[in-house]
């Protein structure tokens, strides 16, 4: 930075010299590129020229190329020179020169004069500035006197600076330096408009000293001079760096500083990190922790809090609070805006309502039937949907339905009671035209629909409903007081009457339409005849049942009558022809009911019979058993002798036999327990007699086994404890004894089976004649090579798989390779995070850490948590303390904050100062 500054100051000199040199030497080698670079460099480092000046310079530069080479050089140089002049004018000279008049007003002047970032200047170029100033001063004073030496030094610096800026090697700038040494003579005569070099350099200019000279003997001069000196020291303010670079530099420095600041924490953090346990039990004094205690300590800190506090603790408010709470209500006024909003809202609602009303009126006025029909349909649809969706609506609907039904039943509006209907009926239906008939039937249908009992959605159960309905029926027919018996008979009579009536009354068959066709007539007749027959039958039955009733008072099942009664009523009310069949049905129903009763009775009898038969069967069973028993009991005596025979060999055999007693014999046992002695013998003999399975055979086998064992045992016994295996004959004998059962081969087969189950053997390639190749070719060549290869591969794979088995090398062992699915949950699915090696992980979990497995002295250490903290302890941000980084952290009970401060003499005393980290290291708290 210093260098760039110097460059800014030195440049004019160089330029002047250079131009002269060039003029003298007429060196052609200078390339425009270099110039450009230089100008670039200048542009980058120097201050910004005003735009107008820049334009002028550009113009000058542009003019150049049109002239001859030399001229160009000169002119361009001149242009630069002008630029430098301008530069000088702007930056180097101005302060003393332009503000000369005002510099005695130091404070103001100073403040005014400083560029925005004077601080930066001070910070960055502390020593350089001074040097520069000195140098400058010296330079300006003894520019000529010092001559070449300074020039050279300056040149060197300049080259370095250029090098730094352009990034080119120093050789590129070598020549210029040499040129600098050459003395330059002026081309133009010295004049006002053509200032000499000296003037330009500042030698000929009026200096401070010149101005101060005459004031030397005036009072206050000393003061003035002192100030002057002061001013001088900081008078030249360098051009500020571009912001980006400045910030970069700033950041760099800041980083360095913060780095050094941060690194002092390193040992502490490292120590905390490495510590197996961190303790936070230092400040155990918890103090009060009530809400009041905390609130009383509250101090407003932020702006907002302060404002709030000022409002809350406002005198007026406090006073009002103290005096009267109602005053506070005055503050509770409703604002105009709120009121307005409310009004608006209400108005809106009102207008919406109005709109709705108008719409409804309009719809009501519409006379189109189709429209209304559609509307109704729609409504019904929606209501139906609602019923489906909503139980509440369904209930409502059901209620409505019920109401309608009640109304219908009360008014009988749709019955043929209206004037119109009666009139038509009087005149006879046959006479009417089809439309009227249809209308009547429609009306009747409606009635039927309306008066039909709906399945109520109400909570009352169906039974109660039926009760109600039966009650209703009773009401209708005014037979409340009649006993069941009487009612039934009455009903029967009624039914009889009705059937008779139907039989008498000829069915009115329509003479026109489809039914008038001959075959239809015939069919109808047939049906009618059948119905008549049925009716007659029914009549007979009625009579018979009536008689029965008279005979046996109340033998009928009341239940049947009630259950069928309603149905009959419903049918009896109807008088139309089609109902006759219904009637018949009901009749048949009656018949059914009767027959049912009969059936029941029959069933009962049958049941009894069954029972009997069952009993008889049971009897038969026992019978079938009993004789056995009897026979056995009879045989007992015979067996006893048997038993004795069995017993003879000794108790051993008898208890063996006991195993095979079957259930039946067990039963018998219980009975037999009474007669204690003969029991076992019976059992044993019984089992032997039973002979229903191979068990006895087995038993026999067992017997033989045991016997043989006994024999063997005897043999061993005879041999005694003495080891007799040395005798080859014995070993031979044993080998021979077990030679029969090829145990090894069996085992091998079993193993092969298991292996095949897990890795099935590949199928052998089979040649299908004519497939894949002509038969004659197949015959000649045999199996295709790929088949063979596949087979071979498969076989190899299998062998490899078999080799991987644990028991691959153990001939006499089969170890199951099946995955124990249930045990999988006991294994770790994946390697847990910090571990990278399975072995390390498995070794790390090998030790149990519980108190059962470890001495009490180490259990605590083994199970200590990572953080030891008492509840309620506040964890403060980490504090800086001296820590010896090479100290062993283990065994350090007090780590982190508990550590005592240590002052190490070697380090600077500054470090002992306690500092607090703002963010602090956040601690894990368990």
């Amino acid at each position, binding site marked *: 930075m210093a260098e760039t500054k110097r460059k800014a100051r030195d440049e004019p000199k160089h330029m002047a010299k250079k131009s002269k040199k060039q003029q003298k030497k007429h060196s052609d080698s200078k390339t425009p590129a270099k110039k450009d670079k230089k100008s670039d460099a200048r542009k980058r480092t120097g201050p910004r020229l005003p735009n107008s000046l820049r334009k002028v310079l550009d113009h000058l530069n542009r003019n150049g190329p049109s002239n001859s080479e030399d001229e160009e050089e000169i002119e361009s140089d001149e242009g630069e020179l002008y630029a430098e002049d301008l530069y000088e004018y702007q930056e180097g000279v101005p302060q003393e020169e332009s503000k000369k008049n005002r510099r005695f007003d130091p404070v103001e002047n100073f403040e005014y004069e400083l560029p925005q970032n004077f601080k930066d200047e001070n910070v960055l170029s502390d020593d350089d500035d001074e040097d520069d100033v000195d140098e400058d001063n010296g330079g300006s004073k003894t520019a000529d006197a010092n001559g070449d030496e300074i020039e050279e030094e300056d040149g060197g610096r300049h080259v370095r600076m250029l090098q730094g800026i352009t990034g080119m090697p120093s050789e590129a700038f070598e020549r210029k330096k040499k040129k600098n040494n050459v003395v330059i003579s002026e081309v133009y005569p010295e004049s006002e408009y053509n200032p000499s070099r000296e003037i330009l350099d500042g030698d000929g200019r009026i200096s401070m000293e010149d101005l101060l000279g005459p004031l030397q003997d005036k009072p206050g001069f000393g003061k003035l001079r002192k100030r002057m000196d002061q001013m001088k020291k900081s008078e030249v303010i360098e051009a500020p760096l571009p912001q980006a670079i400045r910030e970069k530099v700033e950041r760099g420095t800041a980083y360095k500083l913060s780095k050094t600041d941060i690194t002092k924490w390193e040992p502490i953090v490292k120590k905390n990190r490495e510590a197996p346990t961190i303790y936070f039990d230092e400040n155990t004094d918890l103090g009060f922790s009530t809400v009041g205690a905390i609130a009383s300590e509250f101090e407003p800190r932020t702006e907002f809090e302060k404002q709030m506090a000022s409002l809350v603790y406002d005198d007026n408010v406090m006073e009002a609070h103290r005096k009267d709470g109602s005053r506070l209500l005055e503050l509770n006024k409703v604002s105009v805006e709120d009121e307005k909003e409310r009004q608006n809202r209400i108005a809106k609602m009102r207008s919406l309502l109005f709109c709705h009303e108008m719409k409804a009126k309009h719809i009501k006025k519409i006379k189109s039937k189709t429209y209304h029909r559609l509307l109704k349909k729609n409504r019904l649809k929606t209501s139906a949907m609602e019923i489906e969706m909503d139980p509440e609506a369904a209930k409502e609907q059901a209620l409505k339905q019920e109401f309608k039904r009640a109304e219908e039943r009360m008014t009988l509006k749709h019955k043929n009671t209206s004037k119109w209907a009666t009139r038509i009926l009087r005149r006879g239906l046959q006479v009417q035209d089809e439309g009227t008939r249809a209308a009547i039937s429609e009306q009747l249908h409606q009635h039927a629909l309306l008066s039909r009992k709906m399945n109520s959605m109400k909570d009352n159960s169906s039974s109660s409903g039926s009760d109600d309905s039966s009650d209703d029926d009773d009401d209708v027919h005014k037979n409340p007081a009649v006993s069941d018996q009487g009612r039934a008979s009455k009903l029967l009579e009624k039914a009889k009457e009705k059937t008779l009536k139907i039989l008498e009354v000829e069915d009115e068959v329509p003479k026109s339409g489809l039914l008038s066709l001959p075959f239809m007539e015939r069919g109808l007749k047939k049906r009618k005849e059948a119905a008549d027959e049925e009716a007659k039958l029914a009549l007979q039955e009625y009579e018979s049942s009536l008689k029965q009733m008279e005979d046996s008072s109340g033998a009928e099942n009341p239940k049947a009558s009630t259950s069928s009664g309603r149905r009959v009523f419903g049918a009896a009310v109807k008088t139309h022809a089609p109902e006759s069949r219904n009637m018949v049905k009901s009749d048949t129903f009656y018949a059914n009911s009767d027959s049912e009763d009969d059936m029941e009775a029959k069933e009962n009898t049958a049941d009894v019979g069954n029972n009997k038969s069952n009993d008889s069967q049971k009897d038969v069973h026992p019978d079938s058993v009993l004789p056995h028993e009897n026979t056995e009991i009879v045989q007992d005596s015979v067996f006893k002798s048997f038993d004795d025979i069995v017993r003879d060999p000794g108790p051993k055999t008898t208890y063996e036999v006991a195993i095979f007693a079957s259930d039946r014999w067990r039963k018998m046992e219980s009975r037999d327990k009474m007669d204690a002695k003969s029991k076992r013998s019976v059992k044993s003999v019984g089992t032997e007699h039973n002979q229903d399975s191979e068990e006895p055979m087995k038993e026999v086998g067992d017997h033989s086994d045991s016997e043989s064992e006994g024999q063997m045992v005897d043999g*061993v016994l005879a041999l*005694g404890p003495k*080891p007799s295996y040395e005798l080859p004959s014995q070993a031979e004998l*044993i080998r021979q004894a077990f030679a029969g*059962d090829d145990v090894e081969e069996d085992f091998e087969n079993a193993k092969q089976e298991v292996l095949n189950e897990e890795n099935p053997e590949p199928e052998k390639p089979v040649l299908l004649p004519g497939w894949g190749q002509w038969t004659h070719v197949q015959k000649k060549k045999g199996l295709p090579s790929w088949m063979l290869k596949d087979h071979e591969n498969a076989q190899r794979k299998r062998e490899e798989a078999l080799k991987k088995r644990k*028991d691959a090398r*153990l001939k006499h062992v*089969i170890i199951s390779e099946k995955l124990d699915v249930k045990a999988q949950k006991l*294994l770790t699915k994946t390697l847990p995070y910090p571990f990278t090696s399975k072995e390390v992980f498995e070794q790390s979990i090998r030790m149990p850490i519980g108190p059962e497995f470890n001495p009490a002295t180490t259990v605590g*250490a083994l199970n200590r948590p990572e953080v030891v903290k008492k509840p309620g302890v506040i964890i403060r941000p980490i504090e800086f303390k001296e820590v010896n980084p090479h100290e062993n952290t283990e065994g350090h009970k007090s780590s982190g904050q508990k550590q005592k401060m240590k002052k190490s003499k070697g380090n600077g005393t500054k470090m002992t100062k306690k500092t607090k980290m703002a963010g602090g290291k956040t601690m894990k708290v368990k």
Partner: protein
Amino acid sequence: MSEELDLKMKKYLRGGAANLEVLQDKKLKGQLAHRENLYGKSAKAAAKFEKWLMPSEGGYLEAEGPVEKTWRFKQEDIGQAVDISSARNQYDVVLPELGPYTMDFSSSGQYMAVAGRKGHLAIVDMKNFEVRKEFQVRETVRDVVFLDHQLLFAAAQKKYTYIYSPEGIEIHCLKDHGTVLRLQYLKTHFILASVNKFGHLHYQDVSTGASKSYRTGLGRTDVMRVNTVNGVVALGHSGGTVTMWNPNSSAPLVKMLCHHGPVSALAFHPNGHLMATAGKEKRIKLWDLRKYEALQTLPGHANTLDFSQKGLLARGTCSFAEILSGAEHYSRYMNHSMVKGYQIKNLLFRPYEDVLGIGHSMGWSSILVPGSGEPNFDSWVANPFETRKQRREKEVHLLLDKLPPETIMLDPSKIGTVKPARNKEKPTKKEREAEMEAAIEDVKGSITLKNKTKGRNKPSKRAKKKQEIITKVKRPFLEQEMREPQLSRKKQKVCVEDELPKSLQRFTRKKAAT
């Protein structure tokens, strides 16, 4: 001294640390190193405490000179040498009528259950030799086993297995076990295992009642033992095979051919690595269960085998019992001959005592076997001097510490380790591609085209042929790839619903139809 300590320490270190140098993660390395340090301290402390916690050493028989043999010592000689309380353990109980006796000790050795073949059941307090309860079930009793749980015991009777309370009250009748020939109890799992006369192996959890049954398919057997270390049940079969089972699989975990003749007896060493089997072909074999190899073959019959807590092996035939000992190589240690005609049914070492119980056809007897029992008991495991209160406390603890049946496996130390990668897992796309490439390269290298007749040997045709061969090789891979993505998509669909917790599943978007 330090060497001894080191040896003891090694035992407590359980294998030592893994090589931490493999780890890249410094933090983890530090943590593990710290842990290992703690483990070391713990092991050292434990090794030091051993001196105080395990004060007594096991006894033994020592022969003087080369002529004297330990197996020549008679019980009378031993009885004279030992103290009175130990000498009390030499006795014979003669009960000639109720058939050969079997017995079982409770895990602390405090009680003994005896069962006579002809229905005599009794519980004996071994401290004062009092019969706590004695009753007759009037049925064949084939086996009896202590459930270690409120002092219940199970008896395999003629038809069913019954569980009795210490007062002799029948608590359960286990009907679905069938006619049980042999019973075993898995103490830590609370499982009663039985094998019935049809060769069905039946497991029943006595705490929950859950049961499971497996068909062995190897015929009737009454040779059954449980390996106390891992809970695996071993059965000896008539084909000379020994099968090992756990309740989770219907097939045996291990099936090994041990003998040419039928297997007559079986026993497990308390360390779980050693198994002794006896065959009818007059061989006794010792097996290393880690390698499934026979370590040693001894001549002799054995109707019954049993390992003591200290690793002595007892075998019994007819009226003769022999005790073998040895660290690696088992050799004769003691002999005991009973009255001729007695048939030894069952041999069982009493835990925490140097006593061998013998059940035989004429009652039961008990002899002293120096060095058989564990001299130092751990009251957390089994306390021979347990009071009633302690027992009650322990029962609760046992229930709380009950292991689920899944933990029964051949190597229980595998629990908690990383699941081994299944070799049948699908290859990744990259692998598949690489495989395809390799196959193509393979084919390309081996293409040899015949020289055909003039018109057919055109280079274009040859190139075509080559291309065909390559596509033929490629096809199976591509087809497989075509098949894969559909599967995966299906899986994903299923997964989305599965992943959600049940409460949120109803919010998953159903198909557009609804």
